[in-house]
């Protein structure tokens, strides 16, 4: 009796130990690509991505390339995927071979040594397929290539054409005209706004500042510069702060049930957004299909058109991957091959970064904009004018400072509070860099 009890206790200890080692083995195996060397035999590659239906595009590759099998591991979105990757990098194992990374995340990933330099496996051969400004954001201006561009998000403005017409208004081409239009609309019906200033979307404000000529970070030798509190950003903050203070632009965040309702019932009669907006609008306000018109962003200087970027991502290879060569082969196909580009447009609904390959594929407007056959001509035109912008190693800190500081400002509805928020962003971002030991000029 006693012996059997002791045996049972021992057995449960052994079981617990097995359970523990099982856990750690599971975590280690997550990285994939454990089989063999770099040259021969089929290779398994793991790919963390969140673009919708990307697995279907990858299926095309898998049927054609039995030697390099790619498994898409669906992620919740840009932020959670990066958080998970950084954790795996810190842990030393568990990272995938490839990762979908937004452009503003690249410096953070490079700073954590998460992305492999692809110039060693021939990344520079496909440099010509992408616009210079986009390529610059994956090299950070140096010799290394940390990622291959997949899609971009040139900003565009969207308006309810029927509502503008009913009020005898036209699509604004400058920010002054946009303000006038917003005033006129709101005066005609105090419930209607031409747009909203969203303190939740730092990327949106970054794109607007980029259009005005801001570049929030800079590299000078071995030092980083932070230039958030500069003339261009202040111009944008002053403009929107003025409209919010006046009350002709809404101050509530985007992507809330209330905002969705506004898109549906026309109380949000416009949206300053990006080339991917049709996907969001068709999901959130399907019944308004055909009532919208897409246009370039209003301009600060109509004679010198400029644009900002909101969204867009690239494909990087992690430093934990054992097969960077094969990964590069797949990424090159995914982001430059005409068949892959066509599939990305059709099934994932993205705006590809490889301009030439995309031009042939983007002939039809998105279904939601069937009333506007030249939708992609407008997009191609504004994509050419995207202003250069450098992201720094602590975009996450600057963005979270944006959320908090501009939430306060939007709540206060004071122009001066908007300008204070820019100052606070500058201060928080600089202090964070200094605290980590960066040299800040």
């Amino acid at each position, binding site marked *: 009796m006693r012996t059997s009890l002791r045996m049972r206790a021992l057995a449960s200890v052994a*079981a*617990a130990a097995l359970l523990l080692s099982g856990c750690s083995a599971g975590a280690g195996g997550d990285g994939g690509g454990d089989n063999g060397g770099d040259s021969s035999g089929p290779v398994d590659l793991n790919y963390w991505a969140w673009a919708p239906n990307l697995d279907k595009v990858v299926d095309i590759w898998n049927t054609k390339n039995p030697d390099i099998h790619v498994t898409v591991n669906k992620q919740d979105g840009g932020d959670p995927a990066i958080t998970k990757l950084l954790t795996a990098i810190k842990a030393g194992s568990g990272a995938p071979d490839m990762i979908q990374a937004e452009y503003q995340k690249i410096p953070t990933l490079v*700073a954590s*040594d998460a992305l492999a330099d692809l110039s060693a496996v021939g990344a520079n051969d496909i440099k010509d397929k992408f616009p210079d400004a986009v390529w610059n954001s994956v090299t950070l201006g140096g010799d290394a290539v940390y990622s291959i561009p997949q899609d971009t998000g040139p900003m565009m403005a969207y308006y309810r054409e029927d509502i503008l017409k009913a009020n005898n208004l036209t699509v604004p081409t400058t920010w002054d005209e946009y303000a006038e239009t917003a005033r006129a609309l709101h005066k005609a019906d105090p419930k209607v706004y031409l747009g909203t200033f969203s303190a939740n979307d730092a990327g949106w404000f970054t794109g607007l500042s980029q259009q005005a000529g801001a570049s929030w970070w800079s590299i000078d030798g071995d030092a980083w510069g932070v230039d958030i509190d500069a003339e261009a950003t202040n111009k944008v903050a002053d403009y929107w702060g003025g409209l919010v203070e006046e009350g002709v632009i809404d101050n509530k965040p985007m992507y*809330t*049930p209330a905002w969705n309702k506004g898109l549906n019932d026309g109380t949000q009669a416009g949206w300053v957004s990006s080339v991917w907006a049709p996907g969001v609008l068709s999901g959130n306000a399907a019944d308004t299909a055909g009532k919208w018109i897409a246009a370039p962003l209003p301009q600060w200087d109509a004679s010198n058109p400029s644009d900002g970027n909101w969204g867009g991502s690239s494909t990087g290879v992690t430093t934990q991957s054992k097969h960077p060569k094969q990964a590069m082969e797949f990424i090159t196909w995914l982001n430059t091959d005409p068949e892959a580009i066509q599939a990305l447009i059709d099934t994932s609904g993205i705006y590809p970064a490889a301009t030439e390959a995309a031009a042939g594929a983007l002939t039809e407007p998105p279904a939601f904009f069937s009333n506007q056959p030249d939708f992609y001509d407008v997009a191609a035109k504004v994509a050419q004018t995207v202003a250069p912008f450098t992201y720094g190693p602590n975009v996450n800190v600057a963005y979270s400072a944006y959320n908090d500081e501009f939430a306060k400002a939007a709540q206060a509805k004071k122009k001066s509070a908007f300008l204070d928020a820019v100052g606070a962003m500058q201060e928080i971002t600089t202090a964070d860099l200094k605290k*980590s030991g*960066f040299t800040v000029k």
Partner: protein
Amino acid sequence: MTLLAPPKAPADTAGSPLGTRSGRRRRYDVRTRIITPYLMLAPGIILFAAFMLAPILYTIYLSFQRTQVVGLGLGSGARKQVFAGVANYVSALTNPEFAASVGRVLLYGLILIPTMLGLALLFALLLDSRRTRAAGFSRISIFLPYAVPAVISSLLWGFLYLPAVSPFYFVFDKLGWDVPSVLSSKLVLFGIANIALWGGVGFNMIVMYTSLKAVPTEIYEAARIDGASEVQTALRIKIPIIAPALVMTALFSMIATLQVFAEPTLLRPLTNSLSTSWSPLMLVYRDAFTRDNIYSAAATSVVIAVATFAVSFLFLRIVQKRAFGQED
């Protein structure tokens, strides 16, 4: 707590039924008697060490570290983890955002805990009163919100708080009332307290009701014979008798208050009046996962844990004498 202590075992008869074995046998017995309990405890100890103790020790270790960057901080070897001394603790304790978040949850607790426990006690007493009808149904309906996860209830209430989509505001609008948004900066604290209240009353009510049920009915009979009314019985007999349950629910509520996270985190995207550092745990979450500074987040976590321990201990010391006094 002392109520729960098991009755003393009558006598140690199970251990050694016969005291007349050979010396060899006895040595074996002693050894097994010492080793066996540990072997049987081992699964628990191992799991506790692996999933509780190790993370806590690791958190404490991390709280004394920081990142040191070389040059531009790009590429391999550009970032090192170095010893930081108490720097993380100093910055956690001097951070105005942390002080502000603590202030907010204290105010939140002052509003929430008395209201929640007061309502829970009221419902428990009503359910326990002799005249109650449909007690089973009422008990379940009051308890049911507790079964709704905080994430779901926050989303539900979020919808109800947004004037543009809320049926309440639709009615207010039709009546011509100008009701300010619950999500505005002045009222958002009450909005969050309301979600916690809605979910928490039922649980606390059940705890109190259960301990009311454990009271021998002879006491009530005696009170009735002495001419005590229902209200007098409740105030003079029921409440004093269930005081230990009240203390426990108060303690659990205080700890839950200090750890409020899900409700404000889920309401945040809907409004400008909640910051990413609204509550102490939101600040920890932001530092660790948004700002990628696990060292500072670890230090803040340790401060919160120590403060929670201190507050709980102090609270028990102050009220224990009164609540459990009669049992000593």
